[in-house]
């Protein structure tokens, strides 16, 4: 069937499949929705995507995705600069924000240590993190990396960086199931995990 679509339709269907969870079938349905009833929506989507894809980069302080030099969370004066929560992904920042239980700042690693894949300190921006820890403002680092083997390894490395600067490092508590990535944990559980965080040695 798909071979009967015009080149532009095919192109769009293929492009939509870069979204997680979207296969051939859902991509076709989205295409027909966008081009049928909701042509204005399609134009807005195209424009938003184009703008974001060209202008969004990383915050110079925390590596969160933003089109500003410094993201809103980092520049907010209402946030407690002495607390730093280290997470793996931008989605994890949103997950922690949704708990409403955290008022400090963030650092986004954009992944976790995975030595076999060659992902080490450099890839995770640990140079930048080191600078922030050395800045003298932070008194506690909360390690909210995934509760996976790789997330644990990452937490240990950052804890040892914090130790060098005499900064307390704590790990979110295991209410989160092993194998869990933060963004999938419900708000209540995550809030408890944050509150019950334990100092790492």
């Amino acid at each position, binding site marked *: 069937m798909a071979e009967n679509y015009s080149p532009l339709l095919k192109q769009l269907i293929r492009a939509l499949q870069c979204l997680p969870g979207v296969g051939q079938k859902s991509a076709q349905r989205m295409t027909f929705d966008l081009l049928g009833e909701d042509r204005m929506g399609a134009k807005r989507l195209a424009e938003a995507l184009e703008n974001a894809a060209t202008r969004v980069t990383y915050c110079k302080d925390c590596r969160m995705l933003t089109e500003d030099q410094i993201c809103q969370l980092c520049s907010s004066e209402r946030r407690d600069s002495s607390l730093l929560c280290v997470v793996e992904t931008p989605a994890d920042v949103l997950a922690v924000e949704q708990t409403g239980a955290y008022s400090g700042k963030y650092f986004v690693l954009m992944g976790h240590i995975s030595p*076999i894949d060659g992902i*080490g300190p450099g890839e995770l921006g640990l140079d930048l993190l080191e600078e922030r820890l050395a800045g003298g403002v932070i008194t506690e680092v909360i390690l909210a990396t995934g509760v996976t083997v790789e997330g644990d390894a990452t937490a240990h490395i950052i804890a040892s960086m914090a130790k060098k600067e005499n900064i307390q490092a704590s790990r979110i508590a295991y209410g989160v199931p092993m194998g869990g990535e933060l963004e999938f944990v419900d708000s209540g559980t995550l809030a408890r995990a944050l509150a019950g965080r334990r100092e790492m040695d």
Partner: protein
Amino acid sequence: MSQREAVQLESGYVLHHRAYQNTSRIIDFLTENHGLVSLVAQGARRPKAAHRAVLQPFVPLVFSWVRRGELGKLTHLESQAQAFDFAGKQLMAGFYLNELLLRLLARGDPNPEAFSCYSRCLTELAVGRGVERPLRLFEFQLLKALGYALNLDHEVDNGLSIQPETYYFFELERGPVVCQERTEGADVFFGRDLIALREGILDDKKSLEAAKRLLQRALRLYLGERPLRTRMVLSELFGRGLEL
């Protein structure tokens, strides 16, 4: 078409995993009786996937699969025992073991001996008395399991047994030859240290260092030019002065 293979309740460990398609993972397992096996775990990346908690490195697992060709499909999985409770250095050592196995074992080549070296090494790492000794013994035993055993018994040229107070030049793939030098060099080893490795003693710094020097040379022969990534990440961490 290649033959369909269905294996029930095999013991093994996750060595490495990577994302596959939208919600799945491809996992490289070390198995007890089937060597390295790559299997797709369907839906393993879904938030509520049943196996998320156990489908991790350093968990003794029992699992089943079906396979036709290179990539099989995981059909059953359970943990056999508690996960090894590793932290810091132990985790890094574990990743190193995993990479060594992925690089040195041939796919589809059963090697129960390599499997038992691995289980033994994890158990020893878990004791928490340093990682160097367990790693060196693993490297030594793995080379043997792969059929590349180091000769630490006798001199290559005359079959005389190794003497503790003698210096030897070590010819890779052959063995020790008595040498005139009286100090250790890149390829020169003190007999006592060769014996310590052979007997699995390695209880002092000096014999550990000698073992590392010898084993790194031997491993390089089989690993080829491409360096181990775990080793690069580790030296980057070390370069930052991070005590794990």
